[in-house]
């Protein structure tokens, strides 16, 4: 029986060609001979997107060549054989690429370990434990990446070079952007003083982009920059100086508002408000002030002891440009986890 592919003469009754392996029972086989067709929409889409895909492919090939040259600088190596782009894209989540390639158990282990470190790390965000757990999560992520990329046998130096390269890619490509976004949207800050409703040691999340569109409002708990103050005396004669640094406190009044503080009640422009300084123990008995333009009234909660009227005004008025963000969530302790209202 002659093979239709390579014209080799096979023995009768044989199922596959002895030379090329093609099936000899093709003539009687039941199979579809109609090829798959693209829809008109798919063809239009491809016409538009193909130049972009080609561009990305060239960019990817260039990156591979550059990485290969970097690694080859450490000595002769077998040709770098990287996984497919669609596999590499799944490395964003540790274990996903392994599962996609069929290594289910290994992928599952990486995924579970990563989740076990990442989730508690995020839960303890802003604390030392959280930082350690997030560091472990990154280590597991880097290990999963390297486990997939190392497809051949490489020497120690090459593996070090690949470790550095993949860690750098992970840091620059994933963790740095995510970290920057988190730093702006959820920067953790630890309170050092007691002020209702907060306690010392509370970790608050600060949103640095909260006031991009709308200005701060009275009642907002904000993170602001306090400038160095001169040495001053409290009413009890204690010398004090407030160093420069970030601080968290509540805004009591906005620009142009007339503030009257009397017997624990705050009035803004003649209307009573529910807001009070975070640390009412250090608030004066009676106080009247008009907030200048472009400044906000934030009574300093960190100062122990009542202030003289002259120093009270200078320390309480914060320029609008020094307000860095809004503290909107109490992250720690977990027993009082929730939004700040």
């Amino acid at each position, binding site marked *: 029986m002659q093979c*239709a*592919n390579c014209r080799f003469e096979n023995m009768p009754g044989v199922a596959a060609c002895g030379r*090329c392996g*093609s099936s000899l029972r093709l*003539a009687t086989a039941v199979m579809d*001979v109609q090829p798959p067709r693209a829809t008109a929409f798919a*063809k239009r889409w*491809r016409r538009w997107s193909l130049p972009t*895909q080609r561009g990305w492919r060239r960019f990817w090939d260039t990156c591979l060549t550059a990485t290969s040259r970097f690694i080859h600088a450490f000595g002769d190596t077998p040709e770098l054989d990287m996984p497919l782009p669609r596999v590499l894209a799944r490395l964003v989540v540790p274990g996903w690429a392994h599962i996609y390639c069929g290594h289910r158990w290994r992928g599952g282990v990486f995924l579970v370990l990563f989740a076990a470190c990442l989730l508690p790390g995020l839960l303890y965000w802003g604390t030392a434990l959280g930082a350690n757990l997030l560091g472990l999560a990154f280590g597991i992520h880097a290990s999963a990446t390297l486990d997939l990329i190392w497809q051949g046998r490489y020497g120690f130096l090459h593996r070090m070079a690949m470790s550095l390269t993949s860690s750098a890619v992970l840091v620059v490509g994933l963790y740095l952007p995510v970290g920057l976004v988190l730093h702006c949207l959820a920067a953790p800050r630890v309170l050092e003083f007691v002020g209702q409703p907060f306690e010392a040691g509370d970790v608050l999340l600060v949103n640095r982009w909260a006031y991009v569109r709308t200005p701060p409002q009275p009642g907002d708990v904000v993170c602001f920059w306090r400038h160095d103050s001169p040495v001053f005396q409290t009413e009890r004669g204690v010398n004090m100086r407030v160093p420069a640094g970030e601080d968290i406190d509540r805004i009591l009044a906005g620009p142009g508002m007339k503030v009257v503080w009397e017997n624990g009640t705050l009035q803004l422009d003649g209307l009573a408000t529910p807001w009070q300084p975070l640390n009412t123990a250090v608030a004066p008995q009676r106080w009247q002030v008009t907030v200048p333009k472009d400044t906000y009234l934030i009574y300093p909660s960190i100062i122990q002891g009542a202030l003289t009227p002259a120093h009270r005004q200078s320390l309480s008025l914060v320029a609008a440009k020094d307000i860095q963000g809004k503290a909107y969530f109490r992250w720690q302790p977990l027993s009082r986890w929730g939004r700040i209202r």
Partner: protein
Amino acid sequence: MSRFDRLEMDQSSDGKEQPSERDDPVRDERYWLGLAVENRRTGCYESALRYYSRALENDKTLVAGWLGQMQMLVALEEYPEADLWGRKALEIFRNNGDLLAGRAQALCRAGDRKKAQDLCDGSLRQEGQSSYRWQVRGELLVAAAQELDRHCFDKAVLLDADWLVPLEIALIYRHHGYPTKAQLWARQAVEKAPQAPYCWYLQGRCEMDLNLIRQAKKSFEHCLELAPKHADAERSLRELAQSSGSWKFSLRQLFGRR
């Protein structure tokens, strides 16, 4: 049965057979394959694809049918489908050089040049030679903007003197944006087959790409003389007439690519 062998039915007095009995062709795979190639030579790739499929329905062992389907899918710009179909064909006809070349062409046009190169190298390593494998090799070199494409195409023409070969080479150059080279090969096809309307049509398109408006018009008119119902040539002539007065045309004349 032997007793029916000498039956004489519907014969004329001089014993000659009636022409009507022999006019109906036998619609086997060769018939459909012939129709497919005929349509391919006129640029009707959809019909050619259908006829290749019909040929395969009759005989699935026809490698030319599978190859023709892949080539038509590539001509119709359905590259992922051509690649998929090539993979299926290669499961049946393992390591067939032409099928490997077909997959290489589909992948090259889809943008995956590295894989296409590997497949093309594999196809040239297989037994036998064919013009198509060298055409695909040349296309890969064109896509990579390397200089040796001319040698591959010359080799392809040496292996097969059919006019379809220079025509398809012209199509390859045109696809990759080299209208000058495409026009040279289209002219070769026209010289080999001056009676083929599709060659004139392709020459006209290449001349349009080069803004050689008068020459293009002549080519399309010649195409219409040979095939009065050639819709693409009519459309191209209308396009020429409409664009000749526009500002876009003037800009193309000044800054158009050669």
